[in-house]
């Protein structure tokens, strides 16, 4: 059986400056050669990284919400980048997305019923009572009361809106969900509710998740596998427990150490990186982390490291892997 999702050499460039006849003169390398896969159904791949690392773009390109510049995306063995409009529509029943901002993710002018019903109408052409039963069932699935069905999005709290977003994503019984920062707009006490809901749904429905998050604690809580991104590339990937306890890549180490832990006893353990994330417009040829790396060597500037298996499915893209800090 082919893996549920396999991405090979995926690139997404955005034109930045244009000449007056429309040709681009420089490109933003948002996603620059990403390989990843989700083998087993019911598992979660976490994509961790900071703003501008391309993780959100990656999620959009995988769902073909943005056209890819190059690469292949196999969903259950079929390259979805080669599908025509009709075939793509069929595949879309199996792939859905949960957005970061539940405020903009819901059309403010239609009721929750119509929001959740939209996929059912589009694909199953349901109507009337059957439709209402399904909508009520979906709302119940995500822990919302059926009495909420005629309310407008602004009548809900952030957490409830995110539940509506999840209900809409589940409407067609998808196999795979992209979760784009699903809790970062929510309060701490609500975040736990949503994370539990997502885990519960995964266990019951056998869903696979691609979890995009800047919050490593959330990634660790949810993910089976983790990929750490920096400037459009994956610098390290492997089993979550392994990556988040023994990261090899100096960026992953710094990122992990910088997560503030709610324990005053752990103060001052962070590795503070110098400088800022460089621009992804026309990135350097060598290692992209070179300018901030605390353990850089001359070779890092000249040659870009490739992602290589360091044993046990733990892949890292660093010349110094294994003998780093």
């Amino acid at each position, binding site marked *: 059986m082919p893996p549920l999702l396999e991405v090979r050499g995926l690139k997404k460039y955005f034109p930045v400056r244009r000449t007056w006849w429309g040709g681009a003169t420089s490109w933003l390398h948002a996603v620059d050669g990403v390989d990843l896969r989700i083998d087993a159904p019911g598992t979660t791949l976490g994509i961790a990284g*900071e*703003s501008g690392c391309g993780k959100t773009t990656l999620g959009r390109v995988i769902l073909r919400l943005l056209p890819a510049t190059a690469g292949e995306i196999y969903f259950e063995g079929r390259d979805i980048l080669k599908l025509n409009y009709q075939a793509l529509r069929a595949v879309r029943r199996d792939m859905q997305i949960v957005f970061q901002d539940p405020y903009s993710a819901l059309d403010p002018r239609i009721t929750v019923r119509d929001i959740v019903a939209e996929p059912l109408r589009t694909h199953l052409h349901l109507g009337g009572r059957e439709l209402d039963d399904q909508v009520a069932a979906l709302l119940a699935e995500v822990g919302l009361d059926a009495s909420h069905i005629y309310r407008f999005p602004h009548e809900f*709290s*952030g*957490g*409830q809106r995110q539940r509506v977003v999840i209900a809409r994503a589940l409407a067609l019984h998808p196999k795979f969900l992209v979760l784009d920062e699903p809790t970062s707009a929510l*309060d*701490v*006490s*609500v*975040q*736990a*509710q949503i*994370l*539990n809901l997502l*885990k*519960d749904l995964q266990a019951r429905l056998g869903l696979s998740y691609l979890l995009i998050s*800047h919050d*490593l*604690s*959330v990634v*660790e*809580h949810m993910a089976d596998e983790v990929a750490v991104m920096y400037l459009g590339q994956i610098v390290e990937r492997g089993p979550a*427990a392994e990556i*988040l*306890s023994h990261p090899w890549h100096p960026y992953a180490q*710094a*990122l*992990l*150490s*910088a*997560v*503030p*832990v*709610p*324990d*005053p006893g*752990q*103060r001052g353990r*962070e590795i*503070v*990186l110098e400088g*800022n*994330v460089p621009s992804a417009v026309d990135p350097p040829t060598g290692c992209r982390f070179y300018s901030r790396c605390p353990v850089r060597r001359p070779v890092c500037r000249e040659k870009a490291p490739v992602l290589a298996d360091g044993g046990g499915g733990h892949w890292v893209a660093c010349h110094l892997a294994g003998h780093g800090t």
Partner: protein
Amino acid sequence: MQIRNLKVAFRTYGGRVQALDLHRLDVRPGEILGLVGETGSGKSMTALSILRLLDRKAEVQSGEIIFQGEDLLKKTEVEMRTIRGRRITMVFQDPMSSLNPVFPVGEPLVRIIAAHEKVSFRAARQRAIDMLALVRLPSPEKVLSAYPHELSGGMRQRVMIAMALSSNPDLLLADEPTTALDVTIQAQILRLIEELRAHINASIVFITHNLGVVARIADRVAVMYAGDVVEIGSTADIFRNPGHPYTALLLQAIPRLGQKRGTLPVIEGTVPVVTHPQPGCYFYPRCPVRIERCRVERPEAKDLGDGHWVACWKQDGRLPPDNSEGNGEV
């Protein structure tokens, strides 16, 4: 600074909303006080009330804010202007919107210094460069004449901190200063604030929803819920020995690195919007250890020792042990 019985209400189309009903909050000289709470808990409102920068829809109903022996709520607008930006300064979450995009970032900084120290612009310029160097900005002369959009988020926030410190204030209000930043940049800023403590003598009120940040930076922590402080104490006490069920649950509900758990303990329900002030505890509907008294009578803050105050009727508000599993497990 001391705040007593501060009540602030908002007029909305849906009626009056009680935004703040703050019984007691003290800020000690030279400390970093972490003010934590969720959306709508009133933490930002507290800062705006101190500076008297509430918008027109908000109305201070009662209370006092004593700053260096004077009640800020009794000051005239003209008097407040000599306090704002001088004795009390503020750093906001989004530095991009607090910097005027058409001026170089150094412009307001030089003006503040010139006005505050009554020196020439040339001297103020030199001081401004020193301030930018103090917040560890590389090549401060260049930053001084840079426009906001030319700086990264982290650099802008450093400029804002320099600006807030330039008048040598007694109190610095930092409202979610690192929330808009990436984790690695946030780490830089937090370390900067820690390093700056030696150079400044201001008290800092650090407002954030991120418990990890508070644990990292604060000396004392005040936890806010529905417009009031429900617990205040030393950072160690709050995190190791939370006295209020809300604090305890909040701490359990965050996923933590190195402590993978199946399901997270949750606080049911959502943060309330207080339209009708109630006699009881605002956490009552969500509280797992509530008793009848909590519904009818507002709990008073009690001292558990060492300045650890908890507003809860349960003796010390601790959760039953079965609820706190996972807290220390690896």
